[in-house]
């Protein structure tokens, strides 16, 4: 295990050291101490590394992650795991807005709450939130699954494409073209698998499913008032 102390090393030092592992793998397990809320920690990883960040992180932590497993023992700023392709990112605390934005794959677990626009334009990632999420979450969500064990804010799933959303608590309001849908056995099964993988002991039957009504996929004059 290798430790990088950000009270003396720079963010550039950290990311370069982690990127170098893609060329020559010498160490799989990394600890980042004294992160101090710095931005852009562990971004662009492209190797099956395990990275433990021992404290709070700023914007875009684990951005564009591929293959790596990154755990943040604290809270994170805007855009954690943005555009993640694969691997896993786990936040032990809470996340600011745009968590998992545009992410294509992998698993993002937020043990606390997530702010506004969680999963905005998500493109295949799975996001599991232990707490609640803010307004406009999953806006234009294209693919993947968003699981919320707490409540959802206003305009959930606005202009949704094919992301499936599961919420246990209350939904303040649904966005345009988002609707509640039946929980069929295959949905209970996939939700159980997601909760299990994220490490949450919740009953899938206590969740509701939301998805696209698919009424705004093509221009129709009659839909103009929906925007």
């Amino acid at each position, binding site marked *: 295990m290798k430790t990088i102390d950000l009270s003396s090393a720079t963010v550039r030092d950290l990311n370069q050291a982690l990127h170098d592992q893609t060329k020559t793998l010498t160490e799989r397990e990394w600890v980042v101490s004294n992160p101090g809320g710095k931005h852009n920690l562990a971004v662009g990883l492209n190797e099956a590394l395990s990275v433990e960040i021992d404290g709070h992180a*700023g*914007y875009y932590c684990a951005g564009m992650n591929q293959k790596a497993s990154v755990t943040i023992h604290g809270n994170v700023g805007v*855009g954690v795991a943005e*555009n993640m392709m694969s691997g896993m990112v786990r936040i032990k605390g809470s996340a600011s807005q*745009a968590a998992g934005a545009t992410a294509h794959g992998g698993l993002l677990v937020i043990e606390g709450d997530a702010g506004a*626009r969680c999963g905005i334009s998500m493109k295949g990632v799975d996001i599991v939130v232990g707490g609640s999420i803010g307004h406009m979450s999953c806006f234009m969500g294209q693919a993947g699954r968003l699981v919320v064990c707490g409540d959802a804010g206003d305009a959930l799933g606005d202009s949704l494409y094919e992301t499936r959303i599961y919420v246990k608590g209350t939904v303040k309001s649904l966005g345009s073209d988002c609707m509640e849908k039946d929980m069929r056995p295959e949905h209970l099964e996939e939700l159980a698998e997601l909760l299990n993988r994220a490490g949450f002991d919740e009953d899938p039957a206590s969740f509701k499913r939301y998805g696209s009504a698919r009424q705004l996929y*093509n*221009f129709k004059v009659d839909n103009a008032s929906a925007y």
Partner: protein
Amino acid sequence: MSEKITPVLRESATFDRLSIQEIQRAAETGIYDIRGGGTKRKLPHFDDLLLLGASMSRYPLEGYREKCGTDVVLGNRFAKKPIHLKIPVTIAGMSFGALSAQAKEALGRGATIAGTSTTTGDGGMTPEERGQSQHLVYQYLPSRYGMNPDDLRKADAIEIVLGQGAKPGGGGMLLGMKVTERVAGMRTLPIGVDQRSACRHPDWTGPDDLAIKIAEIREITDWEKPIYVKIGASRPYYDVKLAVKAGADVIVLDGMQGGTAATQEVFIEHVGIPILSAIPQAVQALQEMDMHRKVQLIVSGGIRTGADVAKAMAMGADAVAIGTAALIALGDNHPRLDEELKKIDSAAGYYDDWQNGKDPAGITTQDPELSKRLDPVAAGRRLANYLRVLVLEAQTMARACGKSHLHNLDPEDLVALTVEAAAMARVPLAGTNWVPGQLQY
């Protein structure tokens, strides 16, 4: 004996035939008109400027013997690997989806022959374009369709798109007829949807956030790639200052004459400002920050000739970008297509329904049969020819002004033909020393 006088029909200047037709169309359909291309209205443009050739007070260079340099380095402010182009005419961002794969390949081929770069678009990087483009700029758009770190690392530069000249403040649009299986797959969308992209980036708002975003992309790419910031011209003085402060290596400034694959007609014609009025504001912003020529300025929107190139560079641009002109060079709107274009209610020289995928030239389409009509090798050669002509023309004018490099052209080489152009371009009205809007002492 009185003769019958043939009455002259008087067309209203306000309710002209075009306005009447649009009212009738709107009444019939209940929805706005969507088309491709840029603004069609008459605007103050490079045609309203003239270059001052040398005579007694300036020495010209020998037109056929003395060297006039054309190369440009882009992105040497922070990037470890700036781009070095042979010519200062680049190919603007146009997506696979808006264009056929053959058209993207042709752009790559032509640009590489001429020694310049191409740019991806809203929808990701295709192997056809990466394979043929020696210098490829990868756009980072609000939608992030097809965005992935592997392609980010394959790119030669990254262009963060805040807007485009045809629709500053608007998002992308690709109608369902062009969202084929391949296009939908690259964008993670259902086949056949009318794709309406976001107009704001999903994970940052404002210049302070942009600075962190730029730093993130630099970190992911180990500070190798130049980072461009593309702005649709509306408030370029402020936008350029903020982009430079946020850490951009290169500013791309697109005027309202710049084209689009598909946008509302009303948006194209009524939002944004002409490139002529935008360049001086951008240059002023760069000069005030002591960043002119350190952060390079690429301008686009209505570049057609080498004269346009020379005038844009004399106004302070480091390079220009072409989009519509490049498509025309590939074969768009060619007279040989006139009969086919008339069958779809258009004609050669007028065709702008790039949104509907029926382009008989095989360029703005995803129809496999139509796409096959475009030979990427021959079309690439035509583009390379056209780029060569642009550069030769610009060099001819620069030499006449006594300049040994296109970058040595400056505003003192320009005068304006109209008061409007003089005020916008901030150069004197021809035959006077009057620059409207500037104090005279």
